[in-house]
């Protein structure tokens, strides 16, 4: 069994937004599964983290939700990205890329590069 890690603080929101951006409206369970899948099952999502996070994002206006029929004819709450959320995703993606790039450079640095 692969070692599973907890989600780093603050990154889950980004993952949720990105998943909704790529896959379109999702219900909570589907979202959890997709995120775990994309992580290659290296992540497990705690429901106690996910649902409060969804609520918070909705309060912030990054996502919106409404009830609708799901694939097996059961009713479910679907979350979708709003225009605000899309802008937030873009800016956070840029930030994140800048940070990883910076960190990568530091990790790649060797002693003779600096001499």
């Amino acid at each position, binding site marked *: 069994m692969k070692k599973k890690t907890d989600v780093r603080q603050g990154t889950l929101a980004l993952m949720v937004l990105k998943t909704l951006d790529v896959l379109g409206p999702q219900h*909570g369970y589907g979202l959890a599964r997709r995120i775990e899948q994309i992580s290659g099952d290296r992540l497990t999502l705690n429901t106690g983290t996910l649902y409060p996070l969804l*609520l918070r994002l909705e309060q912030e206006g990054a996502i919106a939700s409404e009830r609708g029929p799901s694939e097996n004819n059961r009713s479910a709450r679907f979350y979708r990205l709003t225009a605000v959320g899309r802008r937030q995703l873009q800016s956070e993606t840029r930030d994140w890329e800048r940070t990883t790039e910076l960190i990568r450079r530091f990790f790649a640095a060797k002693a003779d590069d600096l001499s």
Partner: protein
Amino acid sequence: MRTLRRFLMRLKASLTGRRDDERLREELDDHLARETEENLRAGMPDAKARRQAVLTVGRATALADAYRDEQGLPSLDHLFQDLRIALRRLTQAPGFTAAAVATLALGLGLNSAVLSLAYALFLKPLPVDEASRLVIVGRVFTGEARRGFPISFPEYAYYRDHARTFSDLAAHYSTSPMNIITPAGPMNGMGAVVTANYFRLLRLQPAMGRFFLPEEDAVPDRHPVVVLNYDVWRTRFDADAAILGKAVRINGTAFTVVGVAPEGFNGVYVGFQPNDVWIPSAMFSVGYRYCNGLARGCNTIDILGRLADGASVQDAQAEMNVLTGQLVAIVPTGESRTWSAELRPARGIRFMEQQRDAPIVRLLAGAAALVLIIAAANVAGLMLARGLRRRKEIAVRLALGASRGRVIRLLLVESVVLAVVGGAAGFVVSIWATNVLHGYFGQVGSPNTLVLSLGPRVVLAGFAIAVLTGIVTGVSPALQSTRADTVAAIKEEAAGAGTRRSRLREGLLVVQVALSVVLLGGSGLLVRSFFQLHRGPGFDPDAIAIVRLRPSLVAYTNARAWAFQHEAIARLEALPGIAAASPAVVAPLPGWGRPAMAVRVDGDTGDPSSAFQASTTYVGARYFKTLGAGLVAGREFDDRDTERGPLVALVNETVARRLWPAGTAIGSHVTIGPRRYEVVGVVRDLQWLSAVESPEPIAYLNYWQQDRTNAWSQDSRTHIRVSRGGAAAMLPEILRTLGAIDPDVPVSDVQVLGTQLDTQFSAVRAAKTMFLVFGGLALVLSGIGLYAALAFLIGQRTREIGVRIALGASRADVGGLVFRRGTMIFGSGVAAGLAACVVAGPLLAHLLYGVSPRDPLALLAGPMVLGVVAALAIWLPARRAMRLDPVAGLRSE
């Protein structure tokens, strides 16, 4: 932005208590169902699939908590929880709650009343559009404490023509006495002489007709037009719809009505007699006769300005400084003293009265604050005692894992709730106190237009003070109560644990006693000066009526005016019940204008500039008979002393002693100012104020022999002595008699001298009443505090006292223990309080008459009364300690 939005949503969820718990359950059910399905699809048996799913999803309650915390605002929720607990605990202890609320209500109520007074007097904007942009300009003389003196018209015109920081600058003289002939009879009114831009500056719209046109205010005396006050139009002109264009006689001149002012507008002096009419400044001669209101040196007008857009008070002040510099250089104003123009926002009542009332309001505010501190100290003491009784409860809360901060917050919420409830109850107190204050600070004898209401600002400020009081009151008891050692508290090993706490309590008590001594000392001083004041004049002011007769206002010739004055005296003296009547220029009251002049005896060849100076005033025949004040030697003025007769003078004892030590005053000749007089009599020194002040040297000159070039020499304040009963009952008869002589002559300020004296000292009386109330409250509160503290001390040491008695201590020893504690607290409080009185006493000095601010009798009376209360408060608990049954004491745990 995002955070704000989220905060607002959560706040809404917290406040409405509406939670989407339903939604969470749905989501969980859905999640669980899908998880189970997944497990089933993976081949698990039914039960296991379900169990596995539940395990993955997690404990529903923990999830719900996390979810709920996301939804609402946890700290706010906790606060509501604390509030609920606090309310429950307070209702469980109704005695404590009632005592604390009542105590705080008194303290907070008095503060609200003083706040509403201060707001109305100093801060309330004028009731016009954008009143915050209005400023007044007054003259300030270098080195003079009083400010805001009037300015002359040419000076105003210079400012008006050159200032750029004002959108409008208007001049007004708003206390013009006006005799208005209305269909409902002559009316002794108060009018305003204003520039044409006055109404535009105030952004008013007429209720009818129009206001003044610029051309109506351009040429002196050409356009007699008038705007009527709405109420005057309604009540005196019977709301005549066809009033416009009609003629109204004012001070003997016919004016044409051009408009009616909007309802509720009474002029710019708030709390003053309302303006009944407004006339343009070009008609100044009708409103003011003592000098030409439009000329240099005739300082009668006040300036009102509206700041231009973007200009601040500082900008305008800077510009005025520059303009004043130019003005002084270009326009000789005849003013020898150096002066400047000072701007201030137009707020509250007339600035002159603001200056008069400011010290006393400050004093009242200080006293109210002291009462509040005493009340707060008392409640803090109560809470400390309660905290001790609640040790077990608090310890259990701490032991169960409540953080100290949380428990402190709980206790603080309790005290804030108490204070806020007290503040609300305090508004009842403040309604009473506001009424008392209103009586003193409104104008006596004329319509009182000062409105003291608990407006939203006052309520808000009162509420803020209440919350602050709650926090201050609660914080140290809360800190103390939670510091207890948990284990010891649960085991109830109380003995000794409270030392630090009782020290704090005793400290509070000492402060309380000290502050009470200060308040009682202040009350004592004011009461003493009040009695000095009332014994002051040396004659019975209630037997004397004074009426102001002003023929000068209707432009009579001197001959006609004086004929009227003679006729008035003759007819009054003929009335049954009137002993004597005499004209004078001022009332015998302190501070009324009696110009000082050099008095030189014949043969005095000394330097005229260093000659003896005495105050001078004019009185008629039988003036001292009218006053009922004694003649020492010679005679007083009588009917022999006519206009054309030899010039005569009376001097008071102070002058006589000074100029004729040998007692040869009668028959001597003196030069007073430009004229030479024969001294015909010496009269007693009138004590205006108090028995202690040194009497003023006064020379009395004959009313009929005045210099007739002054317009006001036609006018009088005629004194009338009533032989039996009070003068008040005779006033209608007096008015009828005067009206029968000539209905056109304005008769005003019809008053009993005693009332006038009261009015003049209304501030002192207000201070006396309030200080007596404050002092009484302080006395009661300190007594209760002392009693509660000592009773509590006994309760706390019951066991210890039981042991002492069991081991053979005598009852007296035990009683002494309590007694010593009590007297020590009381003694230190009194000592501290007296020291504070001696240091702070001079602050009261300007309100005191004939009493030193360190008057021992006044200062010691308070502590003595307090001592009686304290003795009782000490004796009761001491007796209880002595009667304690040792067995019961030991079992008291």
